[in-house]
C-alpha cells in the first residue's frame, strides 16, 4: 500500500453526544482504493465514525483530513459530496423521493449535472443493479432488500470515489447478501475506496484489505490485515464480536466461537 494517496487521515479524533462518548482518540488513515471494514459491537461508534468521514458531523476534538484538507474548514462541500457517497444503515431514511428513478436521480441533480447526463446515469445505475423494472415504484413499497439496492444505487449514481457503507448486510436475505458482496467486489476492482461499518465478520473477510476494530471503550482496539485480525480470537472476543461456546463430545470438551464466522480451534 506504500506510495498510495491518502484519502483520509484522522488525528486524535474524539466525538461526544453531550456527555456520552461515541469515539475517543481515533488515529487512522485510509488510502486510495483501499477496502476497510470497521468492526465493533453495537454502540461502539461505527456509524459516528462514518458520519465524521462524510462531514455530516464534526469531531469534538481532533482533526479529520480529506485529501490533506481539514473537513469543516478547508474542504469545498461540493467536492466532498461528489467524491464521497454514504449508504445509511436504515434505507428508509435515505429513500424520500416519489419514485425509484427520482431517488437515484436526486444526488446527480444536486451536484449540478445536466438533465441528460442525470437520466443516463440513472438508467445505467438501475441496469447495473438490476432495478430497471422498479423505476416507477415509490421506494416505500419495496422490500428491505430492494430498498437497500435502491439506497446503494442512489449513491452510486453520483459516482463517488469513496463509498461509506453503514451495516450494508443488515436485514438482507442470504441471496441479497451475496449479491451485495459481488457488487462491492466489482467496485473494489475498479478502484473505489470502500469503508464498511459492520459486525458481519464474513463480509469483512470477503472484502477487506484492512480491518479496524472499535472496542466498547470507543477507541481503536486494533488495526491490521483482515487475515491477521479475523484470525485473532482473543481480540474478537474482547470486542464482543464473537461469542465462545463449549460443548462435550463424549470425553472431549469442544470450545469454539459461535456465530456466522466461527473459529474452531480448541479441544480439551
Amino acid at each position, binding site marked *: 500500500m506504500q506510495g498510495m494517496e491518502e484519502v483520509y487521515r484522522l488525528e486524535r479524533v474524539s466525538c461526544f453526544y453531550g456527555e456520552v462518548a461515541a469515539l475517543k482518540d481515533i488515529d487512522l488513515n485510509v488510502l486510495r482504493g483501499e477496502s476497510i471494514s470497521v468492526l465493533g459491537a453495537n454502540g461502539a461508534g461505527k456509524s459516528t465514525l462514518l458520519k465524521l468521514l462524510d462531514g455530516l458531523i464534526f469531531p469534538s476534538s481532533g482533526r479529520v483530513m480529506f485529501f490533506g484538507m481539514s473537513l469543516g474548514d478547508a474542504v469545498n462541500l461540493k467536492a466532498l*459530496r461528489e467524491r464521497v*457517497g454514504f449508504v445509511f444503515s436504515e434505507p*428508509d431514511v435515505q429513500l424520500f423521493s416519489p419514485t425509484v428513478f427520482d431517488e437515484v436521480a436526486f444526488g446527480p441533480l444536486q451536484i449540478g449535472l445536466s438533465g441528460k447526463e442525470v437520466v443516463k446515469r440513472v438508467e445505467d445505475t438501475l441496469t447495473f443493479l438490476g432495478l430497471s423494472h422498479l423505476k416507477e415504484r415509490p421506494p416505500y413499497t419495496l422490500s428491505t432488500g430492494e430498498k437497500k439496492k435502491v439506497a446503494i444505487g442512489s449513491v452510486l449514481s453520483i459516482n463517488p470515489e469513496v463509498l461509506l457503507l453503514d451495516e450494508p448486510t443488515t436485514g438482507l436475505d442470504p441471496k441479497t447478501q451475496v449479491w451485495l458482496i459481488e457488487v462491492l467486489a466489482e467496485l473494489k476492482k475498479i478502484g473505489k475506496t470502500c469503508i464498511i461499518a459492520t459486525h458481519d465478520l464474513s463480509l469483512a473477510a470477503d472484502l477487506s484489505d484492512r480491518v479496524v476494530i472499535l472496542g466498547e471503550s470507543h477507541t481503536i482496539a486494533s488495526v491490521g490485515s483482515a487475515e491477521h485480525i479475523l484470525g485473532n480470537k482473543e481480540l474478537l472476543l474482547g470486542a464482543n464480536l464473537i461469542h465462545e461456546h463449549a460443548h462435550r463430545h463424549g470425553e472431549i470438551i469442544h470450545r469454539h466461537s459461535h456465530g456466522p464466522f466461527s473459529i474452531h480451534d480448541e479441544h480439551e
Partner: protein
Amino acid sequence: METLKIPEWLKQGGQPVCAGAVIREGFIEKNLKAVSSFLKEMLSVRNPASGPAGGLFQGVSARARIGGVFVLLVGAVFMDNAISLFFLISTVIFIACLSHAGLFPLLKRVVPAVIFSLVVIWPVFFNFFTAGREFLVFDIFGSRVALTEEGLFQGGFFILRVTATASLVSLLFLTAKEADIFGGLKGLGVPAFFVTAIFMTFRYVFILLKIVEDTSLARKSRTINPAVMRDGKRWFSSRAGFLLQRALYFSEEVTLSMAARGFTGRIKVFASVPLRGKDYLWLGFAFFVFFMSIGRF
C-alpha cells in the same frame, strides 16, 4: 467461559390449549386499526387506472391535469346554480369511466365527504336555522320543528358543491400516481422545496403508521384481554410520545442523508416537459367552464 443458567420456570411447558372466549379487540386497538386503514386508503394513490396506459385522463400530463382540476375547483366555488354543478359532476363521472377509474372507487372517496358535510350542516335544513316556507312539520317533545324549502335548497346546494369538488379531487387521485402529482406540482411552479416537504410528510406518515400498527400488534401478542379504557389511554399516550421520538429521529437522519447527497438547502429538479395537444385541450375546457361559471353559468 460462563455457563448459561436457565431459570427453572423457563423449562416448564405451557398451559394445554383449550377452548376459551373469542379474542376481542379493545376500543383503542379497533380505533387505531380503523384510523390507520382510513389514512392508507385515502392517502395511497395506487390503482390500475393510474398507469400510463390507463385511459383518457392519463393521456394528459400531470401538470395539466392538476392545473385543470384546480381551475375547475375554483370554478365550482363560483357556480351559483344546481344545473352547472350537476354538469360538472356528470363530466367527472364521464371522464372517470373513460379513464377506467370506475364509478365505485370514485363513490368510495366522495361519499365520506358528503356524509361529513351532512353531519356538519344538517341544522340548515330546519326552521330553527333557516326561516322559510315549511313543508314538513314534526312535533318533537312539544316543540314545532319543520323542514323549510329554503333550508333544503341551501343545504342541498352546499352538498352538491361538496360532491363536485370532492369528485374532481378524487378523479385526480384515481388517475395519477403520487409521483405524477408531486411532479405535476413542481411543473406548475410550486417551489421544489415545498413539494418535497409535502411528499416527505406524506411518505413518512406511512412509516409512522406502520410503527403504530406494529406496536399495537406487539402489545396484543402479549395480552389476553383487550385493555380497559383507562389503561388503553395511558398506553396510547406513552406510544404517542414514542412516535414523536421516532419522527424526530427520522427527521434528523433524513436531513443527514439528503446532505450526504449534495443537498444544500435548495432542491434541484428536472426541467419540466413542455405541454402537448391533449394538455391544451383539457386546460381549454377547464378555463371555459371557469369563465362560464364567473359569467353566471
